[in-house]
């Protein structure tokens, strides 16, 4: 996502109150923001996002499309988009605490044209930070998964061939070099072959 100071930040508004939307649009246009679309009903939201490629989506917290937005990065690995939510909730505690719960939800009290710019700036910055953290987490998770896979393959090999750990490791490394595979791929193959007879696979209807 490129939104350095030279580039305009593309904003999409989803609001069923046309008057409020018009006010916000005005306030945003006065600063460097570029309104790429205003949707009064969120039907077709996904397709609008694909078409208009906003950097940030602003949406009423009471919109049913919160679920749609949250799912964007989950099911289909779309590019995640930060979401700024606005709310008519009187309770500021709700808004503050809700930030801790949602994935990319940044909320504020009822949308106020004067406050819109700082809120979007903060949302974008926080979103970048969160994405970086998430990338880091998922690579750590991957490393952990890989390590578990290797360990499991080694254990199976040690048991099956009655050999010690260094030898199992060596065998797998040789296999990897000979077949031009990564060590993890070799480990997965070993598990697939050796684990079959030792354990009944659980029900898996989705693959």
């Amino acid at each position: 996502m490129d939104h350095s100071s030279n580039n305009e930040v593309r904003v999409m508004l989803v609001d069923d109150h046309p008057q409020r939307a018009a006010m916000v649009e005005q306030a945003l246009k006065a600063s460097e923001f570029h309104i790429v679309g205003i949707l009064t009903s969120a039907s077709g939201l996904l397709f609008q996002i694909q078409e208009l490629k906003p950097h940030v989506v602003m949406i009423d917290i009471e919109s049913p499309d919160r679920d749609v937005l949250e799912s964007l990065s989950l099911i289909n690995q779309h590019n995640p988009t930060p979401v700024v939510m606005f709310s008519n909730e009187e309770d500021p505690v709700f808004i503050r605490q809700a930030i801790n719960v949602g994935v990319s939800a940044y909320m504020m009290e009822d949308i106020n044209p004067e406050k819109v710019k700082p809120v979007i700036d903060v949302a974008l910055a926080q979103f970048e930070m969160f994405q970086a953290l998430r990338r880091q987490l998922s690579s750590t998770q991957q490393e952990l998964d890989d390590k578990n896979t290797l360990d499991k393959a080694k254990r199976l090999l040690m048991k099956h061939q009655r050999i010690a750990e260094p030898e199992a490791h060596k065998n797998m490394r040789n296999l990897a070099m000979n077949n031009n595979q990564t060590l993890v791929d070799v480990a997965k193959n070993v598990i697939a072959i050796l684990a079959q007879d030792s354990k009944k696979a659980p029900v898996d209807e989705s693959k």
Partner: protein
Amino acid sequence: MNLNSLTSAEKTQLNIGFMRLSDSAPLIVAQELQFFERYGLEVTLRREVSWANVRDKVAVGTLDASQMLAPMPLVTSSGLKNTPSPFITGLMLSLNGNAITLSSGLSKQLDLEVSKTGDHCPDPVVAARQLGKIVTTLPRQLTLATVYPYSMHTFQLRHWLSLGGICPDRDVKIIVLPPEQMVDNLARGIIDGFCVGEPWNTAAIQAGIGSSIVSGYQLWNNAPEKALVVAEHWHKNNPATHLRLRLAIMEAAAWLSHEENRLACVPILARKKYLDLPEHMIKPALLGRFQYNKHSPSINNQDFIVFNRYQAGFPWRSHAEYLLRKNLQLQGFNIDDSEICKLIEKVFRADLYREAASLLGYSYPSTDFKNEGGNATSYLFEDSIELGPDLILNGGTFSPCPCESYSGSAQK
């Protein structure tokens, strides 16, 4: 039960969330038939528009409790996708109730010859295979919708697709849409099909824009669907209120297990403040006479949506384990079996169900786990408890992990 023997409620004015779905019936009935009132609770039912909102409002206390999708308390408590927010359930609200519906155009291409089966419903495996044959030859990739990433709906959609050899990640696009937007999006050709709870399948069928292919019941008989969920800290602060809440809703669910009461419930659900839909849309599934196609007769299945019957309210930890493992698989996460055991023990509070059931004099299982997939008819569990069939379509059987620490244990 002597109501005076119950501990006084810590909190009597409650906000409870529900969605525009037929399986909100236990909450709506508890309100309209004054079961809540009988237990000294003054409840305001809040109609919510998205599951994310429901989740956030329960987490921050704007809602005291809410109807939720069965996997939600597990996923939210795990913190795998969000900041963890510990939720618990001591009462499931319903089993089954979903269906997969395809656009009329697409279902015609599957050439299902519904009327010739004699059952007036398509064979779901044949239908999936037919779709599998044409899915990669279609002019554009199919788009199918589910109601929430972590839901039975998602599992059911993926399950059915896999029966036809269709890869849910590669061969089709799966998106999320709110239940009430499904029919509109199908009508406009933006999606080609969906998995949703009632009355939204019936709404599409009656409008003549879609045909149902398979019900949730057919994919997994008597699968967990909705739960009554509260935040764990809310329960700690309001245990007596929580108990009264469960008692009221359990009585409502028991009331709903009689067919004549279901009929009486239809006009109540139809009201503007609840589902705000015509009665003829709500009736078929609720009365167990779901119609797969506008021109085919209805099919009798009294278990299309189950309340109370077959221990529907019991939070089986075996169900929790299934839901959690499916979610982990979907998200590509791995956690240790011991973590899974800890989480389901914390979130699915079988002990809270037993506490309420024994006060009401309802039967309840003494163990927290049951095997899935082995029973084609209803059967007696622990000699005296009637449980429903639990077949998983082409899915074999599922045995819960033997976490010995809580076989039959009731924590306090």
